[in-house]
């Protein structure tokens, strides 16, 4: 088993005619993902990468029974696109778009909760279940099937760590980038609960970063609800206060959201925290032996 995504997911790409949308549609198809259709309002009728493009998600749902959506539309149109997927009953919605105003994100996160859709992102690399499918923009070659679940606020840093694991012979069940925005749909807590229930996942790597308190909050359920072993890494130990470190969410304000606070929270509940990304494979081996 994997979590949220396997080879059965039927995917529609919202914003398929854009540069990013079409490029990653190609890569997702190459990876073996069941991408069945695309949506770009006003462009219905054309084809991209051999896939039919529609004006609405409703058509993609009616004609291809899609259950998963990946969103590449610009920030200005993202609220509408996500609400469209939620309202058409899409169950898994991956929002790649960066720069969505938090007020929009909070609204669609509320609506998704009510309608039972899961949102990954925004401003995220997506989700991959190696060997099964990828719905995202991550390079497929860094992953390999295996027993480690990864959940991360970062993009490339996750590729780096996944690749370190892969090179060390340790594969992954599912890898999720939850996104670098202050407000995201799926949280660390949600992801850990899913991994906990997943038979295939034996241990979890959690990659946090400065800003907010998502790491501190998830630490509260580790060792209680979450019995599986966890190795954590937190980026931004040397970030200064009040400066946005790339991600909209990666900012230390008024002394809260520091890497030290997060590392302490993890250590307090017995999580192994890596000093460097390359230390993670060893720590994973260590916790898996226990």
């Amino acid at each position, binding site marked *: 088993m994997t979590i949220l995504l396997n080879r059965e997911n039927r995917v529609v790409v919202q914003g398929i005619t854009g540069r990013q949308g079409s490029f990653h549609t190609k890569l997702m198809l190459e990876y073996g993902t069941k991408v069945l259709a695309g949506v770009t309002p006003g462009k219905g009728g054309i084809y991209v990468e051999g896939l039919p493009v529609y004006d609405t998600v409703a058509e993609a749902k009616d004609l291809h029974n899609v259950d998963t959506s990946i969103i590449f539309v610009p920030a200005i149109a993202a609220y509408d696109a996500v609400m469209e997927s939620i309202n058409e009953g899409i169950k898994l919605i991956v929002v790649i778009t960066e720069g969505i105003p938090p007020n929009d994100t909070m609204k669609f996160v509320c609506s998704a909760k009510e309608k039972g859709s899961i949102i990954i992102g925004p401003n995220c690399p997506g989700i991959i279940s190696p060997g099964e499918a990828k719905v995202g923009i991550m390079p497929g*070659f860094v992953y390999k099937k295996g027993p480690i679940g990864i959940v991360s606020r*970062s*993009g*490339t840093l996750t590729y780096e760590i996944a690749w370190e694991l892969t090179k060390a012979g340790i594969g992954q069940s599912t890898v999720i980038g939850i996104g670098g925005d*202050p407000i995201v749909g799926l949280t660390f807590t949600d992801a850990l609960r899913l991994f906990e229930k997943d038979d295939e996942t034996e241990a979890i790597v959690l990659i946090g970063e*400065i800003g907010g308190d998502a790491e501190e909050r998830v630490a509260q359920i580790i060792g209680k609800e979450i019995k599986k072993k966890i190795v954590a890494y937190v980026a931004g130990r040397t970030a*200064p206060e009040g400066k946005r*470190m790339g991600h909209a969410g990666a900012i230390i304000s008024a002394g809260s959201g520091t890497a030290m606070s997060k590392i302490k929270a993890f250590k307090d509940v017995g999580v192994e925290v890596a000093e460097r990304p390359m230390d993670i494979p060893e720590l994973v081996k260590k916790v898996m032996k226990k």
Partner: protein
Amino acid sequence: MKLFEYEAKEIMKSHGLPIPQGFIAKSVDEAVSIAEKIGLPVMLKAQVLVGGRGKAGGIKSASTLDEVASISKYLFSLKIKDENVESILIEKKLNIMKELFIAITIDRSERLPVMLASSMGGMDIEEIAKMHPELIVKLHIDPRIGILPFQARKVAQKIGLKERQIITFSDIAVKLYKIYEELDAELVESNPLAITNTGDLIIADARLNIIDDALFRHKEFQELALKRMPESTELERLAKSKGVRLVDLGGEIGVIGNGAGLTMATIDMLTYYGEKAACFLDIGGGASAEEFAKALTPLIEYPRVKAILINILGGITRCDEVARGIKKVYEELKFTKPLTVRLSGTNEEEGQRILKEIGINAFTSLDDAVKNVIKQVRGI
């Protein structure tokens, strides 16, 4: 983007919120004539974007026009946390009986807008939040519905208000939320929200920060935002002049990475080995050779940067594109600063080959690259 107090108050006034009578002065003469117009005593408030203005002596009261002149002269000469005082807000002095606190902001954990209120206004609210969290009342808001007056009335009661002040407070809260929502604010705050001797509530101090990611739908702020980008250091200004966004970290090793997390991790690695990065520069995903060349330029030009570390994990970004960008700058600028490159992932071999042409042996391991740049900067 942060607004000045007087800008925030102008917006609040246009939304029908109670604001002290006041005007902005750009010179001592203006300050005096404003004070004459609105009548003494007055408050003189240095307009800066940084916090801690009160402690830094940026807020004074004056009872005579001579005092207005001397104090405003003093304020114009002030530097508050490196920020020059270019304007002073002159306001009629209020007769304050009690100070409250109210703010609307985003609660990241709950993923909802939140209203914060306290009966302990006028103080450092973060301090109170730490020492006496029970004195701060929180109200989470459904972003699709907004604050309803009855919710604000419950908050008003909890911070000890009674009778008509409950209604005034809730009216203020509803209007502040309207500003929060309409302008996509990150923070709308009044601290203190003053209760005057007549029992009225008035916004004595005001803060309003707009979310940068939402500026695309607020044309009225876009120009202002361009001017007001944080650019506190020389390196940041230099980079900005070349269209590059970076965060100055004060060290000597310039760091460029692709992806925020990876770049932060790279910087953390330097720290791990006892060195300090000069900057955080996230080139983002899928950068072209041109973008790469552009990003490199300020680091090459800026003297404090003694060595440069480029860390690229090629996923969507192609290593050969990166290598071409480096080569381009190398050939055009003929720079001599030590450069360490870590290239790994998509088109790694081709990238390595291109770099070899200009004499650079790229690393595939991040650890090795970090160790190498440290050697370079230490001159070993």
